[in-house]
């Protein structure tokens, strides 16, 4: 076996040092009834070539988004990732290291995480960010639980514009941890009166910007309404590139930002692994979940980095910890950091402008197709169309014509017939004008 360095002779020598006749003797604490002396009914080992062939065959059964015009979003976006990103994250010094528990030999990881935290704080307009969460959905649930701790209240008001998976994840935590969520119904056309639901039991209001249907809003007034009642405003961002073009949550008065960072540096990968972003105000930092990297000095007075404020965390605080998270999304955070540093101010803003322009052009083209209605006019790179018939069937028909047309809202809200004709469509810098024309033409054919 190519990954195992021990030879038979070495194994024998080592057993002699230990003083047992066989390796099996080392397993003497295993109850006899549970000891399996034969290999399981699974295939035997294979060489690299054979494994490669078998997996390539499975990969070939999928339609890569890049092989056809593709317009899917709904929380995961296809962007161009510079070649530098994937090259650097595969450096063994990063990829095969672990959580930087020993700071003297992990200054590389610690410094990029400090840079990541800074980038996340800057783009969200918040004071501080942590070193990552699993993904946007789990970060959102953690944000609500943090708001519960900060306010010592246990009722969250959730916008109908929050991504349905984020809603479900938060509701699942609520059910088990014992807090309440008041969920507004998803409604792409009307504005919801969240402020009216805030009372002195409300820990937070959770909104998404742009929302699940693509609509962009200014939540400053809602922030003020929440603060007036002692509640926090949690702003969720699905499409982090939007922050290059849209007022950041920090400027609107958000107290916590929970976001999905996939768009920067990370491929689609069927939805994971991605990277959760989590940012807040300085005054709440001790209630934050997750790892934090801080600046300090070494024994010679030189600047360096360490994991800090770990008295919030499970390995110190156990059942009183702010979260149970341990392993997070380190390498995806590195991909984010590298891509963001390549973009810089000009590139990040430019990328956002490009996305917005493409989506705006696509919206005009699609809205011109007879029977198609554009539902939201204020959007960033994703919008909702009302079709004259159920969107799921239209999407299937377009797959047959070689276009991945978008996400039918019914995929995520199967039991809401009123949403069945809605199609979520996203455009990024990747989509060409030719792709868009093809989409519009074929949409017209199938309607």
């Amino acid at each position, binding site marked *: 076996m190519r990954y195992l*360095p021990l030879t038979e002779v070495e194994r024998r020598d080592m057993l002699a040092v230990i003083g047992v006749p066989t390796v099996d003797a080392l397993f003497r604490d295993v109850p006899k009834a549970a000891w399996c002396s034969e290999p*399981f009914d699974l295939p035997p080992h294979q060489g690299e070539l054979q494994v490669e062939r078998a997996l390539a065959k499975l990969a070939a059964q999928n339609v890569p988004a890049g092989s056809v015009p593709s317009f899917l979003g709904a929380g995961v976006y296809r962007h161009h990732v*510079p070649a530098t990103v994937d090259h650097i994250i595969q450096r063994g010094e990063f990829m095969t290291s672990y959580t930087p528990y020993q700071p003297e030999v992990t200054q590389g990881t610690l410094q990029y995480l400090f840079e990541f935290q800074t980038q996340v704080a800057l783009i969200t307009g918040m004071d501080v960010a942590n070193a990552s969460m699993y993904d946007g959905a789990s970060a959102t649930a953690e944000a609500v639980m943090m708001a519960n701790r900060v306010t010592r209240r246990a009722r969250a008001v959730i916008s109908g514009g929050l991504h349905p998976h984020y809603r479900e*994840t938060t509701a699942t935590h609520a059910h088990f941890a014992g807090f309440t969520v008041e969920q507004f119904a998803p409604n792409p056309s009307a504005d919801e009166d969240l402020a009216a639901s805030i009372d002195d039991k409300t820990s937070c209001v959770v909104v998404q910007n742009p929302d699940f249907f693509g609509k962009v809003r200014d939540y400053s007034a809602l922030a003020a309404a929440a603060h007036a009642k002692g509640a926090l405003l949690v702003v969720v961002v699905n499409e982090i590139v939007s922050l290059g073009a849209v007022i950041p949550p920090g400027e609107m008065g958000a107290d916590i930002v929970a976001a999905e960072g996939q768009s920067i540096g990370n491929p689609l990968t069927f939805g994971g692994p991605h990277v959760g972003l989590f940012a807040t105000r300085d005054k709440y930092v001790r209630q934050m979940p997750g790892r934090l990297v801080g600046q300090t000095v070494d024994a010679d007075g030189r600047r360096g980095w360490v994991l800090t404020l770990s008295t919030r965390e499970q390995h110190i605080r156990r059942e009183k910890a702010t979260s149970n998270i341990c392993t997070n999304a380190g390498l995806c955070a590195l991909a984010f950091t590298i891509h963001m540093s390549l973009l810089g101010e000009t590139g990040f803003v430019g990328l956002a402008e490009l996305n917005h322009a493409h989506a705006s052009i696509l919206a005009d083209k699609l809205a011109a197709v007879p029977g198609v209605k554009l539902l939201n006019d204020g959007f960033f790179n994703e919008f909702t169309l009302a079709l004259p018939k159920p969107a799921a069937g239209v999407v299937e028909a377009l797959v047959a014509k070689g276009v991945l047309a978008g996400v039918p809202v019914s995929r995520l809200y199967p039991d809401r017939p009123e949403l069945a004709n809605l199609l979520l469509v996203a455009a990024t810098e990747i989509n060409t004008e030719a792709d868009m024309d093809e989409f519009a033409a074929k949409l017209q054919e199938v309607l």
Partner: protein
Amino acid sequence: MNEWSKAISNFTTDGLGVSGTYSGHRGLQIEEPLLFERDSEGRCGVDLPEPPKARNRLGANARKGRIGLPGISEPEIVRHFTRLSQKNYAIDTGLYPLGSCTMKHNPRLNEKMARLPGFADIHPLQPVSTVQGALAVIDQLAHWLKVLTGMPAVAMSPAAGAHGELCGMMAIRAAHDAKGETRNKVLVAESAHGTNPATAAACGFTVEAVPANARGRVDLAAMKAQLGPDVAAVMLTNPNTCGLFETEIREIADAVHAAGAYFYCDGANFNAIVGRVRPADLGVDVMHINLHKTFSTPHGGGGPGAGPVVLAAALAPFAPLPWVVHGRNGFEVLEKAEGDAAQAFGRLKGFHGQMGMFVRALAYMMSHGADGLRQVASDAVLNANYILASLKDDMSAPFEGPCMHEALFDDRFLKDTGVTTLDMAKALIDEGFHPMTMYFPLVVHGALLIEPTETESKATLDRFIGVLKALAAEAKEGKVEKFRAAPTLTPRRRLDETGAARQPVLRWRRPEEPARDAAE
């Protein structure tokens, strides 16, 4: 002057400062500023086209101010991150015997497979007809996990071990609820990883510790006395965090079941028994598997991981969404609590789980096969016992061997030397090795937990053992100063963690703008 250049000039003001050179660099030890400290105006690491003419639809919601991101060119960025990487220790650079973490070799084949466009470039909400191969990967990996554990079901979506714990404990709560039983207490082994009690608390349970006995195992009699109609589950790790197999595990499982509770097993240490022992045969009801440990998906500097959870039949109906199932036209994804998944307890993250990690883990399993995985466990246990046997007279082992995949020592051998566990760990760094896990588990004093894994050669282990023998001898000879000063050969010496926590600096901030002319 920015902080970095100030720091460098501090080194050099009194002739050759701390670093001993004029540049601040020392050979291959490079002083690397923060991204934000590079002068940035006018540079960019990407070339984007001008946006085409289009109607702007942001209106008043458009961002107005600058973000403050530095502009840097690509060559500078490549150099920045490459230099940072060189300040890291990693499996690729040497033995990484971090107990409980299973830092084994990460095959590059797995990376290559995960990057095939058919896996990396598919959207989670594409029509299922266009992702049948991806669903087949999930299904095949699930099959391997079920056979290896003997369990009938597996929940694939959790993103790491702790997330898997959450999944398992929620399934347990849902199962009790379905029976109409209210059980609010969870018993957690005293030696458990911190995520165990934190998870139980996050699921709304109160936590009670189960003590360890003098043999480093769960105190069965004490646990039995703690069991009662209010106990929902017992959370144990097996092999446990002392690196020992729980000899009475079947009696433990029987007692837990007799009390109407479920047995959660933390599967972080599955590497010791993979291919040799099936957790189902031990009476386990639910267990997470850290794919980033046993199945070698890279640790990535702290993730991403994946934590699938195998479930006994009684808990399987409660597994969270989504479920990948065999349907009439190939694989289907159940994303709603209805039909077979009617009792699913909810959802833990977006989409379908850590697909990128699934591909890597499956490539790893296929490479090893049923035969190779048995050898993995054997060699992992052999390597750990070789360390235990070689060092037990120089260091102090709190418990009788044989151990499983990791060897635990305590700090009795350092008694009266003035040298601590921390000092030993830091001295090990100067000898070119990553330290072992320190001060965990909490059940022994000054723990040093060494997990070599199966991918280390005997020659490496011999060097490591030689170093630890020498260090133990030096500690006993009273060379305290050397230990207190260590490490001295790293890019940074010991860092002030207390200071970092007292006045947290968690991000870079632009140095104060020079004061504006007051007369203006």
